């Protein structure tokens, strides 16, 4: 899943090298945190969050059956 998020960052952002991806596991749930430069947040989120939701949907579909995944996109500080 990390590879997928990295690919998305490279394909959509001007400055993919500054993106930080962290995962937190709690039992069957894996939550991904993607930290992105503030100016580029919109590129990943899309209009009305449409793109971010598409990223989540694809992650959920590709995850192993017993695993729940979620994604949060946050500004780099």
């Amino acid at each position, binding site marked *: 899943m990390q*590879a*997928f998020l*990295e*690919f*998305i960052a490279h*394909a*959509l952002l001007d400055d993919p090298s500054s993106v930080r991806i962290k995962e937190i596991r709690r039992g069957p749930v894996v939550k991904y945190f993607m930290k992105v430069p503030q100016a580029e947040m919109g*590129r990943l989120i*899309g*209009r009305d969050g*449409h*793109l971010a*939701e*598409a*990223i*989540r*949907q*694809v992650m*959920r*579909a*590709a995850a192993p059956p017993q695993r729940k995944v979620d994604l949060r996109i946050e500004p780099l500080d």
Partner: protein
Amino acid sequence: MELVVSGSTIEAAIQAGLAQLGVPREAVEIEVLDPGSPGFLGIGAREARVRLVVRELVAPSASGLAPEQIEEAVAQAVSGLLTSLGIQATLSIAQETVEGPEERGNYSIWTVRIEGPTAGRLIGRHGRALYAFQTLARAIVARRLGTFIPLVVDINGYRAKRAEALRRLALKKAEQVMATGRPVELEPMPAAERRVIHMTLKDHPKVTTYSIGEGEERRVVIAMRWTSEGD
């Protein structure tokens, strides 16, 4: 360019808007402003209103992009997504030309067919993951080429199979509505699938269709058509 149109149903409004703009459906973003209401016996009926926003279109002549360039960008985006997800599959990419009205020229729609034993995971319930995958592929290609390319993604022939099943379901439920006189609510479906139901029954003499609910809960209702002319 954008346009707000109304019609008796959402689908009718969209069709009217597309005809007015002279662009294929793949070229617009559709926002439902008011789903409208059939009212009761024509009382309280309200027209549906939609806003169509035309995305920057690629007329092959005007974009300055060679088909090979577009095909390469599409292939890289889709295979990159699949590889990063650990899915092995084969791709075939085809360019289809859709005739537009004279002043806008012809449009190309790019179809990507993904085939592979594990690719089916990316279809998801009611194809929702497939449409999400398509959204990502479109965004990546648009970013790379600087312009929106109408791109349709299919996985293991899902779209054609699903459309056929939905048409059969629509006709069966229409029979049921006629037999009982009662409206039937279908289960929630994404927009592309609701559209197949609407299109299948749009010229049906006895029943009509509309959608209710929001977001992931949005679903089609098939009901008796109430005509003001009588019959």
